[in-house]
């Protein structure tokens, strides 16, 4: 890999809690090139926190340290807030988990996409409007004209995800962080959305961080995968190896998937080994 697009070294995040600070990320490191990096792992293991840290979107009270957090040429740790406002939504875009909540409840879909498009590109209002409608069509929204005029609470769950993806992709970011972007999509629409994301990476050379709990999907779609547990990276592996992973946590994850081809009475819930947490990885 040539010069990486994003490099994160020893990132630590702690949130204030009732008794002092509690750790959400305990020193994670990774590099991303023009590729698709999956992040899977336990609920609460710090996946969204990692994405938000790169965007510098963590609450002001969160304590963030790292040895490095670099976006090709920009020191994300020390960049001014003003500079970050340019980068956010421009060079780096994040599709947030809970999109209907993340969108502005008081503005229509169209006005939000147009606004974001005009902040980050030189498009005129009418150009931005055309691009918004074209993008809604690209993400397979039936009847974009109608949906453009809806407010976030009037969207279905999967429409909310697609609106957020459309909004984030219009300025052609170099780095896309997608936090559970397809969890509310049926498999057929999902395939089309994945094609669009893939196209950004393969044809435009963007980097993609794909946070998801869908192991078969990540194994199939991504190039590499980080497996997280308790604020640490348990293992990093080629995506196609995911189903044959060796780390006991990753194997436990694979074992608890409900099978589609046969009936089982009860699903396997993994026993958590305290060892996994004490383990320090380079």
């Amino acid at each position, binding site marked *: 890999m040539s010069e990486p697009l994003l490099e994160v070294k020893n990132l630590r995040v702690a949130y204030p809690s009732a008794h002092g600070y509690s750790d959400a990320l305990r020193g994670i490191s990774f590099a991303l090139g023009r590729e698709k990096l999956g992040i899977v792992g336990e*609920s*609460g293991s710090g996946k969204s926190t990692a994405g938000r840290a790169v965007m510098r979107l963590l609450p002001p009270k969160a304590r963030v340290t790292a040895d490095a957090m670099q976006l090709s040429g920009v020191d994300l740790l020390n960049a001014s807030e003003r500079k970050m406002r340019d980068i956010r939504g421009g060079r780096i875009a994040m599709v947030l988990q*809970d999109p209907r909540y993340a969108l502005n409840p008081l503005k229509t879909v169209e006005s939000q996409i147009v606004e974001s498009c005009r902040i980050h590109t030189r498009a005129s209002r009418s150009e931005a409007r055309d691009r918004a409608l074209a993008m809604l069509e690209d993400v397979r929204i039936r009847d974009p004209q109608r949906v453009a005029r809806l407010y976030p609470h009037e969207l279905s769950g999967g429409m909310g995800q697609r609106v957020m993806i459309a909004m984030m992709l219009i300025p052609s970011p170099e780095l896309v962080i997608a936090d559970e972007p397809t969890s509310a*999509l*049926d498999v057929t629409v999902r395939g089309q959305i994945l094609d669009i994301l893939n196209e950004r990476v393969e044809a435009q050379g963007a980097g993609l961080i794909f946070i998801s709990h869908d192991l078969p999907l990540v194994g199939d779609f991504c190039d590499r995968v980080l497996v997280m547990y308790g604020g640490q990276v348990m293992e990093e592996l080629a995506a196609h190896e995911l189903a044959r992973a060796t780390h006991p946590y990753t194997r436990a994850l694979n074992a608890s998937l*409900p099978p589609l*081809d046969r009936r089982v009475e009860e699903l396997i819930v*993994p026993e958590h080994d305290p060892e996994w947490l004490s383990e320090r990885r380079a």
Partner: protein
Amino acid sequence: MTAPSLEIVNLSVAFGSDRARVQAVDNAGFRVAPGESFGIIGESGSGKSTILRAISGLNDEYDGSVLIDGRAAPRPRNKAFFKNVQMVFQDPYSSLHPRRMIRATLMEPLEIHRFDRRDERIAQALSDVGLAPEFAYRYPHQLSGGQRQRVAVARALLLEPRIMLLDEPTSALDVSVQAGVLNLLNTLRLSRGLTYVMVSHDLRVIAHMCSRIAVMTQGRIVEELSADDLRSQNAEQDYTRELITASRVALAAE
């Protein structure tokens, strides 16, 4: 079949007017027996959540009927209805008040319905979904996506309803935590005879949890199949076959 616990008949819901009008649900119908778990799958935007919101009365501007134990559900829904029927929303934020601690959100229904041992019940409900008791003292924005979703499940379970409407209840959970929540739901259904209607895009989850499944596109239920039909790819409609095949491709990739 015994008298259904829940039945919808010719249910239709439309939004907007003139050019912006959309028939979100078009003459849908199904019956769910006591103790049965019924699934709904289908295209994004096809009206699945709208059906659940009509049943729960969150939107009572519907045509057709919603019957609970053979009797029409009151409009607007009353306290007795919510003691019987609880819903887990697709968006966990919608059942959590942003400026209230989780404890207050969980306490409220217990007070309204005059439950005893409230703190004990809250601690139990949180532990059932794999959350430590300390989570009661957080605000919704201080939780991860999957933790919020588990609080929403805990909240619906607190009132010990007989019928649960579950809209993508595990979509934000990793598979290990999902396994715990699905096992819990199955245990409760079998031990207390609960009735579920469950929406999910994950055919694995649907096949594991439900005995019969409705398939929706564009507001209509286009077919109903059994979990075995789903597993053996035995579907009539092209759309259903497409859905199953696409899920199988992902399966084959393992």
